């Protein structure tokens, strides 16, 4: 039906209602070509700001003063300093994702069990705090948990802790955990929809206790969502830069800080080495994502 009218698919400035066949192309094909033309501006911007920088990084990670090769990667893996950055990044990402997930799981499940007024309120608040990250968050944590922070002083007074160093690895894990929680809740809350209340009742009728229910029904149903969330949280923490940069003025040794230091620092400028580190960071994320896909396939296989 739409075929004859498709002819008039042309620039809005054209006043004639029905187009003369200007080109020898069939009108339908011309419509397609025009449509494809509309994709060009998007493609241009996407290439300039997303693809080209990534390609530059990928190519130049193989380029060093000694010529083309794996020299940059050899330098990274041969240096205790850079290996420490990788180790710190992985440790902080892993633990903050784990703690963030644990809190998000408990929270999302309970959110499903309370009245809708409280639920909507806390969900909306959680979504808002997901934007409270980066520099402002680091600042807020300095006020609360810095050496003279109100919460630090309070906890010391109660006798729960003797001291707390926000600027250490453990301090960063606490801080990262905070910004993982809203994201975890956002991703996990819908997953609990899949867990129907009558399954729990049926399981209880058949003699299963709470533990049995979670072991045999709850966890297997949730596994794909849990894995997916964990992967996103890991990636989120691995790439985080603003928080740790503001907190330690770029002194704490994690990968994003090292990468940024190598391209914008005052001491050691080496964009090619930065590219190699950046490729390792992207590679780590790729490995995590692939592992996730494999685990997901396995868990689906088991449930079949």
């Amino acid at each position: 039906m739409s075929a004859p009218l498709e002819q008039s698919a042309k620039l809005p400035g054209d006043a004639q209602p029905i187009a003369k066949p200007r080109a020898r192309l069939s009108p339908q094909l011309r419509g397609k070509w025009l449509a494809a033309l509309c994709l060009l501006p998007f493609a241009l911007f996407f290439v300039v700001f997303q693809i080209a920088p990534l390609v530059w990084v990928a190519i130049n990670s193989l380029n060093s003063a000694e010529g083309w090769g794996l020299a940059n990667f050899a330098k990274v893996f041969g240096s205790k300093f850079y290996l420490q950055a990788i180790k710190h990044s992985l440790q902080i990402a892993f633990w903050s994702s784990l703690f963030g997930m644990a809190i998000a799981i408990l929270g999302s499940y309970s959110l499903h069990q309370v009245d809708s007024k409280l639920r909507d309120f806390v969900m909306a608040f959680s979504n808002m705090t997901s934007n409270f990250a980066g520099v402002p968050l680091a600042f807020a944590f300095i006020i609360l948990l810095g050496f003279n922070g109100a919460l630090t002083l309070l906890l010391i007074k109660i006798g729960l802790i003797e001291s707390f160093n926000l600027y250490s690895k453990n301090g960063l894990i606490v801080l990262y955990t905070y910004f993982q929680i809203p994201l975890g809740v956002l991703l996990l809350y819908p997953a609990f929809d899949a867990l129907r209340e009558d399954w729990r009742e049926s399981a209880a009728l058949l003699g299963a206790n709470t533990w049995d229910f979670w072991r045999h029904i709850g966890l297997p149903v949730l596994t794909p969502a849990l894995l997916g969330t964990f992967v996103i949280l890991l990636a989120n923490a691995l790439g985080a830069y603003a928080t740790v940069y503001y907190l330690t003025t770029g002194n704490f040794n994690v990968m994003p800080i090292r990468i940024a230091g190598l391209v914008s620092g005052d001491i050691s400028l080496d964009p090619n080495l930065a590219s190699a580190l950046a490729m390792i960071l992207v590679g780590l994320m790729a490995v995590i994502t692939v592992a996730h896909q494999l685990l997901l396939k396995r868990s689906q296989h088991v449930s079949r």
Partner: protein
Amino acid sequence: MSLADRAPAALYHRVVVWLLFLILLTPLAGTLLYSLSTSWSASILPDGLTLKWYLELWSDQRFLDAFGQSLLVCFGALALSVLLILPLLFVVHYHFPKLDGLMNILILLPFAVPPVVSSVGLLQLYGSGPLAMTGTPWILIGCYFTIALPFMYRAITNNLQAINLPDLMDAAHLLGASTWKAAFLVVLPNLRKGLMVSLFLSFSFLFGEFVFANMLVGTRYETLQVYLNNMKNSSGHFNSALVISYFFFVLVFTWAANRLNKDKS
């Protein structure tokens, strides 16, 4: 389950939800209190309350400049995103539905490649030469488009699927509308809500972007986040007022998005 069983469980869930709320609230509440206090050091509670930090902040020219520049960059990026993404979505879903699969892979890139990695390439490619853009707001607008892309693409795709694009277009054609007319007068108004929600939410996270702003532009075109970073050595109360003012804006925008979302259902 009997009622007696249920009561403690209900209490447990309420306590967990309130604890979650409390954890999320604490840093914000702490900053708010700090921004309102005359002085607060080495004690658990502040000495007195005042609004002078807000007055000082909102009469600081450098802050007002940074604020305006942040708004300009964000609005510019959102306008560019709409201009690029709407035609893309329409063409992909109406003419080349098969491209949607490819797009779903492409929009993962901004997620998978952290800004710090992109910055390495961006600094080298556009630091000099024909496309020299670093140090100008233009490069930020381009980069922010890539950040907003996955989000806007997904949100509007959901909306497009809900309105059943091919049927709507056929109906418009039948009634004599050209493809352009149908796209602008029939499809676009139907996408308004999804578009607005994704714009509000994109604004709230673009407004807080720091990595690109600091690495690619820095003080040459100071945005709010870079300003906050550069004010590190000034009074903590002043900075708290800055953080709270910033977050207030984010709050307004996310709240607006939430309201719109609710109206929809």
